[in-house]
């Protein structure tokens, strides 16, 4: 089985602690490097517009609220199909691109509504599962939840790891859980949410990333969006480097998804720079990189309208989700 771009899917591997426990991540150095992505690379004018368009292709357009309804999900899906106003698409000259977001991400009970609303669009539905966001639910129920969401038509499952296992350094148990989840996913892709804001250290972030990949994760993802601290560049850098180490050890390409708190178009650029600098061009495609975001699309749309018209845009003139 391969991904849409033809990369073979990560089958996982036996737990190898040498790739996990030998690595120490230096936080201040990671912060220094992360600060450079915004200042060392500058994407301007037409290139900036293109990079923002690309960011739209990478968005997992998300709603994960207690008050989600079928209606709300349908609105979101409509925006996912047509993320930019027609005048902007024409102004940018990208009518032929067939621009759409990377996926729509919802709670399990919202999956059927999303699947219906997205029918024929080619946009996959991603479902969070495994007792999202805390994951503190018996394992058999978490696995059942995955199976249920897959049965409802979810093509991607965003699972949460047990933070307790990571904090205790019980890598074997964490590995076993994620491996079982991967099996429960079947053909659906597994995105492992590490909830990095609750892991304490970057060294732990690296270790948890490595365990998830060894257990067969297709993507590693920073956050649920519900932790106190969600996606940050230093955390992302750490995960991306773990992903690179894994790739060097196994030959498999793993995807990365920062999520939570990414709101500005400028951030979309910084994260893409990070991916390109640390991993290369391949990681600017939706099969290997996604943004978990909802409000960022609005800011990107305003920036692109400015690019087209030269006038600053107002959000009420853009369709909401």
């Amino acid at each position, binding site marked *: 089985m391969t991904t849409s771009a033809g990369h073979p899917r990560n089958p996982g591997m036996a737990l190898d602690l040498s790739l996990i426990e030998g*690595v*120490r*991540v*230096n*936080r*201040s*150095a*990671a*912060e*220094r*490097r992360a600060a450079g992505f915004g*200042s*060392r*690379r*500058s*994407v*301007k*004018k*037409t*290139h900036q*517009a*293109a*990079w923002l*368009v*690309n960011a739209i292709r990478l968005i997992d357009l998300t709603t994960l609220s207690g008050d989600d309804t079928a209606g709300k999900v349908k609105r979101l899906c409509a925006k996912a199909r047509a993320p930019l106003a027609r005048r902007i698409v024409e102004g*940018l*000259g*990208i009518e*032929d*691109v067939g621009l759409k977001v990377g996926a729509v991400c919802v709670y399990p009970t919202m999956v059927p509504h999303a699947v219906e609303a997205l029918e024929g669009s080619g946009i996959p539905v991603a479902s969070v599962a495994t007792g999202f966001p805390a994951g503190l639910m018996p394992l058999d129920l978490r696995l059942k939840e995955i199976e249920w969401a897959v049965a409802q038509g979810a093509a991607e499952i965003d699972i949460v790891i047990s933070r307790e296992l990571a904090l205790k350094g019980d890598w074997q148990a964490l590995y076993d859980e994620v491996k079982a989840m991967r099996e429960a996913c079947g053909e659906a892709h597994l995105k492992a949410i590490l909830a990095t804001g609750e892991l*304490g*250290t970057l060294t732990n972030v690296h270790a948890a990333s490595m365990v998830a990949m060894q257990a067969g994760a297709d993507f590693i993802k920073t956050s649920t969006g519900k932790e106190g601290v969600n996606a940050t560049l230093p955390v992302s850098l750490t995960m991306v*480097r773990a992903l690179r180490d894994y790739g060097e050890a196994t030959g498999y390409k793993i995807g990365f998804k920062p999520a939570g708190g990414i709101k500005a178009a400028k951030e979309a650029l910084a994260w*893409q720079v990070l991916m*390109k*600098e640390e991993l290369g*061009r391949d990681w*600017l495609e939706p099969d290997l990189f996604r943004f978990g975001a909802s409000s960022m699309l609005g800011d990107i749309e305003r920036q692109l309208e400015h690019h087209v018209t030269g006038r600053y845009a107002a959000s009420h003139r853009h369709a909401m989700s």
Partner: protein
Amino acid sequence: MSIQDILRTMDYGTAPEDASIVTAWLEKHQNGLGHFIDGAFTDPGETFEVANPATGEVIAHVTQGSEADVDAAVAAARRAQPKWAALSGHERARYLYAIARHVQQHTRFLAVLETIDNGKPIRESRDIDVPLVARHFYHHAGWAELAEDEFAGTEPYGVCGQVIPWNFPLLMLAWKIAPALAAGNTVVLKPAEYTPLTALAFAEICVEVGLPAGVVNIVTGDGATGAAIVAHKGVDKVAFTGSTEVGRRIREQTAGTGKGLTLELGGKSPFVVMQDADLDAAVEGVVDAIWFNQGQVCCAGARVLVAEAVEDRLVAKLTARMKTLRVGDPLDKNTDMGAIVHPVQLARIRRLMEEGAAEGVTITQGEAPEGCFYPPTLVTDVAPASVLSTEEIFGPVVTVTPFRTPDDAVELANNTAYGLAASIWSENVNTCLDLAGQIKAGVVWINCTNVFDAGAGFGGYRESGFGREGGREGMMAYRRHHARRGEVVEPAEPHAIPGENAGAGIDRTAKLYIGGRQARPDSGYVYQVPGGLAGLGNRKDIRNAVEAAAKAGSWGAQTGHNRAQVLYYLGENLSARAAEFTERLAAFGASKADAKAEVDCAIRRCFWHAAQADKFDGAVHATKSAHVTLAMHEPLGIIGIVCPDVAPLAGLISLVLPAIAMGNRVVVVPSQSKPLAATDFYQVLETSDMPGGVVNIVTGPRDALAKTLAEHDGVDGMWYVGGAGAMVEKASAGNLKQTWVEPDRARDWIGADGQGRGFLHRATQVKNIWVPYGA
């Protein structure tokens, strides 16, 4: 290019910085730029061309400073200095604050001008150079405010002659001018010939803020102009940043002139990667170390020393990272490495690389465009003996050499004539601090590199120069203790011909004292002195004494408490033999009361220095957030001490004790005419648990022995009291050892002048250790 095309490649495109304002400035000055003297710009004289190295285009014509220009500038600085120094600290602070504000407000202009003149990427000039310049003036506005309180008992030098290099033109100007002005000096500064433009723009800022005329003078020109400033009689202090070769010449040139001197010279700094380092972090460290400013950085981590266990992985990661570096148009915000400053430098890099290649090293390179550019370069399979490991290349070239153990790493790190900076990468704090202590460098960065702040001192050990720039230690380089006048006392020639009556009593044999043992002089001769016969030491005795001192290195690693115990014991034993020492001094002709006073003084000095041994400690500087910046006082190493001819006991004690209290080992040449107080003293040393080799005593002809010591490359500092200070300073240029020379009778060795923190400062050098933290 269409958006669809870009979506396929996802290239960054170009992001050129707009240079139109700077272009307009250059056009305004198209008829040539003069000097800035006495608050005004002179008409352009005989000019030379200044080019943009990235394009080769001539962008300005700048005046070649003549001796007359230098005369005028020094005269203006001299006229302005008394008034400037007489201003209150607060008033000087207001000017420095204004300069800081204006630099900050002109940041973009200065950054673009610097990039066009120097070839460095706009990202660096904009984000690093110019912000550090502003920070430096802010910080020193503070020192100006506080100078009278914080540096009581000192005064400004007067007129400072300053010569700066082309690698950080405006930043080096700030490092020179800010402390000089804060301390109450006025300056004549010469920017480098390749990069004079931001200095002239800075002069315009001086006009803008209304700085009094003559306080800052900028004279442009080549090496000859610099030499004229250094040699000028009206200059009281010389500060130079540049090559070790020129630094050495300046040391020779200023010898005996009484001018203050600080030198910030070359380096070949080690970058040590331990097995447990965060390798990805270390890779970015190398980028910041050697691929920063095209490698044209004196403190660049040019020698990667890596644990053999992780060598292959590090090299693979470095090779991959190097390929993502973008070399090209310095004005493009996406450029990582810009142009080499001048074709002459490019040719030098190429020549060294050809020499290295001929030795059979492996060279891996990134890409660079045609023109005055050089690609990022990684050299592997390179031995410590390679020209690429020893020569400062001053280009984007890093060597990788494996080591086996931490001890091996330290030895390789210290296997250089330089000692400017070091970078250490390990996730183990024990390892980091152990290596930081052992590596001989003025700046040590732990898990980071090329981090600077105005609040911390910067400067080297060994042949990387002396003096610090930044922080309190940097300010001290621009204030001096009130000038001392002495007189030249020429001791009588030592006579080795037997025959004079040596006096009555049981004969006592005074020998040399080397490595904790009494030793006969190599010459086999003695000379007559009051009280008997003294060994006639020669250069071989000095050689032996320095060897013995080198073996006693563990003295500096002992706790201050342990050293204090030895010094107290010394005082105790001296006290027990006070009567005998008093008699000896009286026999030299001193009155009984004076002799007693001198012995009492010697005993008190023992106690005072024992007290200081564990108290003259360093500081933690307030620099950047989430960094601990430790300013450690470390001993110089081996100090040659040539004692005053007067006060044969107190003079010796007053100089030897601060040196050894701070952990140095010494080779002492006692009073030539009355050496027997010193030879009595070694018996006290022997009974006081002083480890062998810490204090070595060689009697004999003062200046001949001093010359051998000053020329000795294994001696790190030279303290000399006598009439041949110029000779000592000149002879010390060989390894750029720190010197302190003074004529005889310039101070009362038995009085309060014979001890103090000033002595301890001279006995130590500051090592700044940067430790960023984050769990």
